[in-house]
C-alpha cells in the first residue's frame, strides 16, 4: 500500500467517524450527569432533518447547521425535562423520542416537500468539512479537560455519581442534568448536521442508520470518557473506511462480511475487554 492510499484511507476514516464522535461526546456528557441517553439516534435524526430543511429554505448551509444543532438541543432538552421534572423512566423516554424523531422527519418530508423518503438537494458545506472534523477532535479534548479538571465538570460528575451528595453540596442536580441533556442533544444534532450537509447534501429517511446507537456503544467502550469515546468512534470510522477500501479488491471475501466488519470487530473487542465497565453510579435513576 502506498503512502497516499493510507492517507486517503485515514482521511475517509476521520470523515466517517466524526458524526459518531460528536454524538458520542453528547452521550458521555449526559450519562456522566446521570441521564441514560438512548435518544442519540433520534437527536441525530432531528438535527439532520432540521439542517436540510432550513438550508433548503434559507439557501445558506451554515444557518441550516445552526438550526440543526438548535433542534438537536431542543430534543435533548425535552428528554432532560421529562427525565428530571416528570421523572419518567429515561430509557422509555429515549425510545419514545427516537420514534417521534424518525416518524416526525418522515412526516415532515411529506408535509413540507410533498415527497416521501428524501429531501431535494440543498446547499451543503461539503467543501468546508475539515473545520468540523477538527472541531470534533478539539471538542473531545476540551470536554475531557472540562470534565476532569474544572469545577463545572466535577459538579456534573457528582450529579451522575451521587445526586444526593451533590444536592447537599449546594448543586441543583435537576438543573445540571437538564442542561447536560440539552448540550448532549446539540452535539448529537451536530453529528446529524455533519451527515446531512457535510457528507451529503440532503436528508433521507434512515440515513442515520444506527449511528446514534453506535455512538452509544462508543460511550460505553470509551468507559464514559470523552477521549475514550472519541477514540472508539474514530476506530468505527476507520473500519467503515476499510470496508470501502476493501470492497471489490478481495474476491474471496463476501461483501456482506465487509458490511458487518465494524460490528464483528466490536464484538471481538468486547471479548478482549475483560475489564468491567462501570457506568456512573446514579445513571438512569430519577432524582430525588
Amino acid at each position: 500500500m502506498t503512502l497516499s492510499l493510507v492517507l486517503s484511507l485515514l482521511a475517509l476514516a476521520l470523515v466517517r467517524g466524526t458524526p459518531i464522535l460528536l454524538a458520542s461526546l453528547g452521550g458521555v456528557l449526559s450519562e456522566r450527569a446521570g441521564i441514560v441517553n438512548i435518544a442519540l439516534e433520534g437527536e441525530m435524526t432531528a438535527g439532520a432533518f432540521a439542517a436540510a430543511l432550513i438550508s433548503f429554505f434559507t439557501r445558506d448551509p451554515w444557518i441550516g447547521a445552526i438550526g440543526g444543532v438548535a433542534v438537536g438541543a431542543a430534543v435533548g432538552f425535552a428528554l432532560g425535562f421529562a427525565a428530571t421534572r416528570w421523572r419518567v423512566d429515561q430509557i422509555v423516554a429515549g425510545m419514545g423520542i427516537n420514534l417521534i424523531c424518525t416518524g416526525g422527519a418522515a412526516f415532515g418530508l411529506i408535509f413540507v416537500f410533498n415527497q416521501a423518503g428524501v429531501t431535494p438537494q440543498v446547499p451543503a458545506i461539503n467543501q468546508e468539512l475539515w473545520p468540523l472534523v477538527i472541531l470534533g477532535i478539539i471538542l473531545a479534548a476540551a470536554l475531557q479537560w472540562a470534565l476532569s479538571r474544572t469545577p463545572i465538570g466535577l459538579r456534573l460528575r457528582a450529579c451522575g455519581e451521587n445526586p444526593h451528595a451533590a444536592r447537599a453540596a449546594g448543586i441543583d442536580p435537576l438543573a445540571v442534568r437538564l442542561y447536560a441533556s440539552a448540550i448532549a442533544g446539540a452535539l448529537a444534532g451536530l453529528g446529524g448536521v455533519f451527515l446531512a450537509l457535510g457528507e451529503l447534501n440532503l436528508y433521507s429517511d434512515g440515513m442515520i442508520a444506527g449511528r446514534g446507537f453506535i455512538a452509544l456503544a462508543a460511550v460505553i467502550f470509551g468507559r464514559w470518557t470523552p477521549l475514550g469515546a472519541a477514540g472508539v468512534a474514530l476506530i468505527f470510522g476507520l473500519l467503515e473506511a476499510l470496508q470501502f477500501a476493501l470492497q471489490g479488491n478481495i474476491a474471496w471475501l463476501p461483501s456482506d462480511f465487509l458490511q458487518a466488519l465494524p460490528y464483528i470487530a466490536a464484538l471481538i473487542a468486547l471479548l478482549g475487554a475483560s475489564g468491567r465497565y462501570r457506568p456512573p453510579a446514579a445513571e438512569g435513576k430519577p432524582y430525588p
Partner: protein
Amino acid sequence: MKRESVKAMLVGTLGVVAAMSLAMLASHVSPILGFNAFFYGAFGGKQQIAETLASTTALLFPALGIAIAFRAGLFNIGAEGQLLIGGLLAGWLGTRIDVPPALAIAAIFIAGALGGAMWGAIAGWLKAARGANEVISTLMLNFIAASLALYLVTGPLRAPDAAGPELSLLPHAYWLPTLLSQTRATIALPIALLAALALRYVLDRTWFGYRLRAAGEAPEAARRAGISLSRVALWAMAWSGALAGMGGAALVAGELHRFNTQLSPGYGFIAIAVALVGGLEPLAICVAALAFGALESGGLALQAAAAVPKDAIHVIEGLLVFALAARRYLGAKGVTAQ
C-alpha cells in the same frame, strides 16, 4: 389499577387523540373523517380486524422476549436480529422437511425459537463469561444478523425461484391456518397469547422466574443469596431471543410464507416500546401489542384514505410511550440500562 396509572392512561389517550388531530389538520384532513378512516382501518371489518391482529402478533412475540431480558435487568435491544435469525432458520427448515403439516408447523416454530435463542445466547454468553455490556453486543448482533442473512440467502442458500433476497416458498400445507379465512390473522396469535400466559406463570411462580427477577431488581442481594448472575444472564437472553425468534417463524409461516431479509419493518424495535408500555407484565403487554397493532393497521388505512402519512403513526406511538412512561413503577421492575 392504581388511580395514578388510570390518570396517566387517560392523559395518554387524550394526548394521542390531540396529536393525531393535529397531524390530520396539518395534512388538510378533517379529524372526523380522519378518525373515521383510522378506526375503520383498524376495526372496520373482517379484513381490517385481521390486519390489526396480524400486526399485534408480529409485535407480541418480540415484546414478550424483551420483557424477559428487561425483567432480568438486561437491556436487550437485539430483538430485531434475533427475530431475523429465527425467521431464517424457520424458513430454511420449512423448505427442507417433508412431514405431516402439524409436525412441520411445530418444527418451524421450534426452529425459529432455536435460531433466536442462539442469537440471544451469544450476547448472554458474552455477558456471563466476559462481563460484556449487552447494549453493545445485542446492537452489534442486529447488524451482523442482517449481513449474515443477506449473505446466506444470496449465496449458499440461494433459491432458484427467489425474486429478491429470499428463500423458497414454503409448501402450502405448512402455511399457518388462518383464524379468519382469507386474511393474515393466523393461529400464531393464540400461540403468542399462550406464550404470554406461560411467561406470566414462569416469572411469578417458578424458581427460574424468581431468580430472574431477583437478578434484575437487586443483583447484589441475589448474588449473595447464591444466585449465579452469569447463568441468569445466559438463560434470560436465550429465552428472550427464543420468543423473538418465534415471532420471526410466525411471520415466515403465517404472512410471507417464505423467509425474506425484509421480513421485519422494525418490529423488534417497536416491540421495545410495546414491552415498556405494557409495564413488562406479560398480560399487559398483550393489551399494549393490540393497541400498537391497531395503530399500525389504522395508520395504513389513514394513509390510503386521507393522505395522512403513515409515519405520523410513529410519532403517535412515541408520544404514547412518552405519556405512559409517567407511570413511575417501571423503574422498580429491573429496567436498568448498562
